[in-house]
């Protein structure tokens, strides 16, 4: 029992954290203060109201706001402010009754349906389905026709509206139920009731509160509707809705009278909405701690942002200049937005790709390789931008190019295939339709020619029966077929460079090999260059001619694949190679100690220094530039000669 306690304790709901979160939102706080004041003032109406709400002063009718009557008087000379306060007692109390019924009916039903499941669940769900189809107002009108007073109305409103909270509570319960700590609680022998009360109810609380605030707002409006129709109180007693009805009778003489009662309703509804939104946002933050963590990283971002603009100095010629290069990237720096401003993600990356060449970009996740590839197409996530450097593609500058010309390049000059083929196709259109559309966007072809071309492309990517595949929707394809379709899509504009962003990661091993085969032969047939983003050295060995290794936003080594495998010039490359199961020898697989430092937390000297087995004092002094190594290669290591001894036996 005691061994499980800490696990269970983690999921206890803490009250102080959400309250502190709420205090950080001024708008929601204001809304809460307004609601509290409103409820207090209305409950204490007999004490705080300036006048008797039903006292008719016929000598002072229809006056506008004044010191004596802050909100003026109505057509019978009654004080409007007092009527609002007393009317609130009716309207708010009515709404509260409806909300109580809503919760009392909805929460238990949702909990039980979600927790027990089975036949009961199906019964509850089909009843809620039916109730949702009943027009609420009709039920209320029937009830109003039959019963006296407003309590039955509000009870039925709560019941008829309850499907919305039942569904939310049920869905939350279903998802919480499968979590480990709930299972653990069941295993240690807590009864179902205890599990529900201790573990599930606290998780259900926040989403249920959101529903309550939405419904409370709706209940106030509906109560006002009933008041307007004269169904909640008997005159002369006021309610907010009946005050609007009274005001409507003199709308042509005294339009002002419409304002106070209408505004108090609107403000209350807005306030409830704001509070509900705040509860939802706070709960989202609380349930996904990664969001908070991602924010807190940004502390050093301004400093990094400043560095991004300058770019790390990179002596001319350190990267073999690509006279015949198809794509030549120099000192490319990329920033993404974060809570405190901008965060440098890629720091002065440089590399070249020749025509028809295949270059691998290798590195652990988070090193900036995918972002670099995306930036070349101008497809950075919202708020991301290129902060410096250049990228020449076939004589055209990509960085700072007008949006129009960069769009021109997409598809026709540079194509992209991505990691998840199933997600990369539009689910609402057939493969053939998407292919034809992309073909016609890139080349001036008629419908019929585009159709022929699309079938040719599907055949070119070795899909059996192109006509059949063209007529299919993405969800009807297997992962391998979908990736072939994606490749066809990328080839449609006959690009000179294909960016392949981990195109085989999500596929089965046998399918991986087929796709790699296909890409290899396509490269030979079409002569296009391929930029292959991957973390798989096996893929690099089979497929690439040269490789750029990235670490913590920087390119740390570039060289021919064979040379690099034989003798890495950077200790990170060495570590990656040694940690790769394809090339490891006997014994346990070695791994690089430590983790990649996240953007914003990069060391000031060599970024790999904290994890490097060969580190010396000078490594930590200042940023390391790319420097020429042997065999026309470059490295960002001060002491490449120290690497070696351990890797000679790996090469083969």
């Amino acid at each position, binding site marked *: 029992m005691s061994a499980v306690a800490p696990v269970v304790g983690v999921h206890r709901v803490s009250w102080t954290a959400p309250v502190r979160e709420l205090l950080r939102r001024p708008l929601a706080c204001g809304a809460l203060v307004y609601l509290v004041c409103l409820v207090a003032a209305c409950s204490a109406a007999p004490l705080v109201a300036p006048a008797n709400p039903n006292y008719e002063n016929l000598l002072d009718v229809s006056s506008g706001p004044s010191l004596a009557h802050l909100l003026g008087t109505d057509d019978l000379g009654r004080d409007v402010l007092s009527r609002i306060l007393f009317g609130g007692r009716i309207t708010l109390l009515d709404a509260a009754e409806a909300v109580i019924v809503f919760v009392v009916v909805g929460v238990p039903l949702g909990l039980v349906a979600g927790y027990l499941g089975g036949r009961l669940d199906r019964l509850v769900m089909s009843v809620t*389905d*039916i109730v*949702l*189809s*009943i*027009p*609420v*107002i*009709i039920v209320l*009108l*029937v009830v109003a*026709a*039959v*019963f006296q007073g407003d309590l039955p109305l509000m009870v039925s409103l709560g019941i008829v509206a309850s499907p919305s909270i039942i569904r939310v509570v049920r869905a939350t319960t279903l998802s919480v139920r499968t979590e480990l700590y709930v299972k653990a609680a069941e295993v240690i022998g807590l009864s179902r009731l205890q599990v529900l009360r201790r573990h599930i109810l606290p998780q259900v609380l926040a989403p249920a509160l959101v529903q309550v605030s939405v419904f409370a*707002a709706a209940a106030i*409006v509906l109560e*006002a*509707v009933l008041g*307007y*129709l004269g169904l909640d109180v008997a005159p002369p007693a006021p309610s907010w809705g009946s005050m*609007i009805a009274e*005001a*409507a009778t003199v*709308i042509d003489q005294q*339009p002002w009278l*419409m304002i106070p009662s*209408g505004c108090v*309703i*609107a*403000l209350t*509804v*807005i306030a409830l*909405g704001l509070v509900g939104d705040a509860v939802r946002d706070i709960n989202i933050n609380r349930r996904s701690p990664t969001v908070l963590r991602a924010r807190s990283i940004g502390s050093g971002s301004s400093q990094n942002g400043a560095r991004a603009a300058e770019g790390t100095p990179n002596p001319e010629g350190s990267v073999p200049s690509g006279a015949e290069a198809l794509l030549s990237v120099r000192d490319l720096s990329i920033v993404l937005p974060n809570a405190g401003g901008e965060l440098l993600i890629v720091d002065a990356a440089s590399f070249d790709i020749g025509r028809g060449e295949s270059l691998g970009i290798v590195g652990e996740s988070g090193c900036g390789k995918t972002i670099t590839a995306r930036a070349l*197409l101008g*497809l950075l*996530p*919202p708020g991301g931008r290129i902060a410096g450097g250049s990228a020449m593609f076939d004589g055209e500058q990509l960085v700072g190019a007008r949006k129009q010309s960069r*769009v021109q390049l*997409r*598809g026709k000059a*540079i*194509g992209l295939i*991505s990691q998840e083929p199933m*997600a*990369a*196709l*539009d*689910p*609402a259109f057939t493969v053939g339709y998407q292919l034809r*559309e*992309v073909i016609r*966007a*890139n080349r001036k072809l008629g419908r019929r020619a585009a159709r022929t071309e699309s079938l040719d492309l599907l055949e070119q990517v070795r899909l059996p029966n192109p006509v059949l595949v063209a007529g299919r*929707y993405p*969800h*009807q394809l297997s992962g391998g077929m979908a990736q072939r379709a*994606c490749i066809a899509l990328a080839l*449609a*504009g006959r690009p000179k460079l294909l*960016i392949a962003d981990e195109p085989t990661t999500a596929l089965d091993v046998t399918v991986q090999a087929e796709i790699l085969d296909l890409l290899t032969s396509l490269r030979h047939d079409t002569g296009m260059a391929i930029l292959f983003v991957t973390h798989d050295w096996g893929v690099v060995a089979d497929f690439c001619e040269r490789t750029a290794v990235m670490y913590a936003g920087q390119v740390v080594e570039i060289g021919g694949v064979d040379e690099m495998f034989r003798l890495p010039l950077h200790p990170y490359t060495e570590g990656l190679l040694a940690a790769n199961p394809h090339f490891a020898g006997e014994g346990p697989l070695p791994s690089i100690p430590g983790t990649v430092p996240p953007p914003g937390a990069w060391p000031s000297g060599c970024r790999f220094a904290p994890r490097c087995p060969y580190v010396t004092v000078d490594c930590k002094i200042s940023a390391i530039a790319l420097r020429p190594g042997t065999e026309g290669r470059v490295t960002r290591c001060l002491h490449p000669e120290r690497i070696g001894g351990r890797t000679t036996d790996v090469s083969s």
Partner: protein
Amino acid sequence: MRRMILRRLLQAVPLLLIVSSFTFVLVSLIPGSVATALLGDTGTPAEIVAIQRQLGLNRPVYVQYWHWLDGVLHGSLGSSFQNHQSVASILNARIGVTLTLVIATVIVVAIVGVSLGVLAAVRPGVIGRSVDSLSWLGLAIPNFWLGLLLVAFFSIFLSVLPSEGFVAFSTSPLRWLESLVLPVIALAAGPLAIVVKQTRDAMVSVLESEFVRTLRASGLGERSIVLKHALRNAAVPVVTVLGVLFAQLLSGTVIVETVFVLPGLGSLAASSVSAHDLPVIEGVAVYFTLIVIAINLLTDTVYGWLNPKVRVT
């Protein structure tokens, strides 16, 4: 797809039974009220009993309900307690007004709401924020209050639009349009806000999705990406919401038709309540439920058209 529609149709039967029997049981709880409503306070006990017998209210509830159901199966919804007209003919004379109002509102909500939502998604800056604030207002303002404000401004202050009444299209298309403008705005404001929010959220998440990136990378123009691919996918949740809103609009007609004195089903329901006119209320409930069922079917069909996964399997 066909199974889905079949399921909806099967659901319709218990739905209609529940709504009608619920109404019946409730109203029968206080049998005296109809007679009192018809006779006023002057009715003697003998007169009340006579009226009850005449209307069949002295029989047990289930017998009354069975009698009513039998009538429905033979195409009759009974006759009004107030003026003994056939309920079906009263309702049929009014359903056109309500349907016109609701369909016009749905069209306005769909077109304006989706456009504003797309705009807010594509231009997140100042335009996005103002669309956001406006939709907040739309949600917060009760429709009948908005209707009265519109009347105060456009009918009384500017005198450009009628404050009440309905003109048939056949009488004068222009005045027909004029008589619809204010009620439609009053009815549309709330649903519009919901559709704008829903469209914006759906568009934002679709525009961030993988396939949009692929299509952009393959050289498709932004126009086709936003208006064809993103919108088509974002429309799936929006259509669901529109279906739910359609049902809510029927509720809204009760008050908006009352405010603007339009001779539709909604205002009829409101006025029949004070008269305790059971057959008429019952009839309105049945008509409203039938309309909701029809809308659900329509929503499912459109949903299937938009979402191939549903259509094919």
